[in-house]
């Protein structure tokens, strides 16, 4: 069903992408500014600046720095965060559970609400239900997430005092960020499911199933819905990938201690080792999710032949 040759090829491609992204980030972050100037007080002397630079190895040419970095990475050492003075990789992995938790709850909400809502809209096409669902879905997609966030905080945290406005630790902390992220993803899922479902319901095999005298729910769920799952999985996969890749805006608005916020603050602090480790971890998750989505295709639809592009 899934050819080993295909998996091998995909893994090789993945490795190329990961090495590529490491190189590009290594180079670009060094263009973006000097961490030494940010680490020392404004009145530090030239000698002090030079000494710290030498201490951290930033006085070397970029290719030498890169070589040293690669050597250390080969032993699993991503260096020490300049700002926190702790191992960079450990800092990232420390934040990872929060991001994964947020991504999965938001995506579950999107799936659990979006899937039935899309089916309902397609079946009752052009009804009041359909129009209302589509309006809400479009709204969710058209709002900048930081604005959704501000609004949720103002209404539910400040005015009504139902949920904490920021931080993490309890389930109640999870509600508002999940709502903000979920609103966005639910809109996409609902619209996509509806579109595919309408297409599928017009197919011959659905008419045949109806003609056989199958119950309506059997036709819908066993025949129609199954056939619109492929693009839904693609979209859920892409959504999961980009949410895992750091819901940086959401995490910042709600002060959620995730990887996205860590990356952004590390970029602003020019914390080279931390940026490097965080970007790689995020990229690994991104490509793994994509790989899993591709492989799931074969499981759901045996007709899919690997090597061809996704439908």
């Amino acid at each position, binding site marked *: 069903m899934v050819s080993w040759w295909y998996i091998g090829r995909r893994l090789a491609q993945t490795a190329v992408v990961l090495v590529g992204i490491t190189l590009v980030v290594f180079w670009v972050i060094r263009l973006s500014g000097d961490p030494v100037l940010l680490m020392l007080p404004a009145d530090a002397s030239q000698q002090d600046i030079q000494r710290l630079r030498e201490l951290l190895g930033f006085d070397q040419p970029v290719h030498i720095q890169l070589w040293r970095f690669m050597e250390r990475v080969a032993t699993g050492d991503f260096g020490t965060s300049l700002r926190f003075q702790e191992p960079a990789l450990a800092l990232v992995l420390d934040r990872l559970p929060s991001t994964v938790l947020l991504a999965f709850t938001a995506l579950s909400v999107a799936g659990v609400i979006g899937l039935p809502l899309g089916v309902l809209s397609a079946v009752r096409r052009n009804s009041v239900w359909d129009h209302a669902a589509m309006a809400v879905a*479009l*709204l969710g997609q058209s709002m*900048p997430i930081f604005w959704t966030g501000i*609004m949720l905080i*103002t209404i539910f945290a400040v005015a009504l005092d139902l949920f904490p406005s920021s931080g993490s630790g309890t389930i109640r902390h999870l509600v508002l960020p999940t709502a903000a992220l979920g609103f966005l993803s639910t809109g996409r899922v609902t619209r996509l499911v509806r579109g595919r479902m309408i297409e599928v319901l017009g197919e011959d095999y659905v008419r045949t199933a109806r003609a056989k005298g199958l119950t309506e729910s059997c036709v819908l769920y066993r025949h129609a819905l199954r056939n619109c799952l492929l693009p839904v999985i*693609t979209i859920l996969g892409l959504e999961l990938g980009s949410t895992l890749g*750091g819901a940086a805006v959401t995490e910042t608005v709600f002060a959620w201690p995730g990887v996205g916020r860590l990356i952004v603050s590390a*970029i602003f602090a020019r914390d080279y080792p931390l*940026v490097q480790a965080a970007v790689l971890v995020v990229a690994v998750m991104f490509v793994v999710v994509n790989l899993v989505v591709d492989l799931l295709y074969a499981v759901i639809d045996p007709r899919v032949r690997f090597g061809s592009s996704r439908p």
Partner: protein
Amino acid sequence: MRVLLRQHRLGFLGIGILLAEASVALLAPTLAPHAPLDQDTVWRLKPPLTVAGAGRFMLGTDQLGRDVLSRILYGARISLLIGIAAVAIAAPLGVAVGLVASYYGRAVDDLMMRVADIQLAFPFILLAVTVVAVLGPSVGHLIIVLGISGWVPYARLSRSEVFTLKEREFIEAARSLGAGDVRIITRHLLPNVLTPVIVVGTFALANTIIVESSLSFRGLGVQPPDPTWGSMLSDSREYVTVAWWLWVFPGAAILTTVLAINVVGDWLRHVLDPRAVVAAEGSAPR
């Protein structure tokens, strides 16, 4: 005509809103009741319509006493300009990459698609920070950042279109008549991918406006005191509880624009390209 109008009511509504917005943006200097940068600390943080005198400060004033309505009108200019210009860079770039990759196939295709993967996994914010650090913050640089990072959807789309096209007879016929690669790509393949590219471009425009506002929200976009919708929202953060009009109106401006563009995109997709383009609606920052 009536049937046509009824069927495409939403699409026409979207186009109407966008045209109105474009003219408001163009006419901002005449329409705006105040200069967008005019400060007047006497009138700090006034709620909408509370200052007497023929609708002065219809949407209230901000923490420096600047007129919110005027700033939103001027903000429309910058937001629309950045969005359109960025799409105008990203679309040709992406289409060119996609056409070349799929036409030559094999190693060229592999290489370009890996570059696309790297681009997608690359943290956009690092690119923005670097460009601002190296070149300085300006509208032009912001357009460049958004333009060069937005090419991937166009490339993937035109690539998959060309894969099915290039084996067709008319390409074979053109080649046997002596057409070179460049001619085949530009005269025979390019016209065939333009329709779906227009659909993707519309959604990308909506997305770019959101990305721009998110960047300005972080202080990486257009620099103060120039007004953009994102920077107005960013400024409002400290006054969220005391001055609702500071975050409601700029946010509503973004929402209306993006909603209108998305509606037009849906309509174009329906009219031009009945096959739904799955990946058309790029990924918004979250």
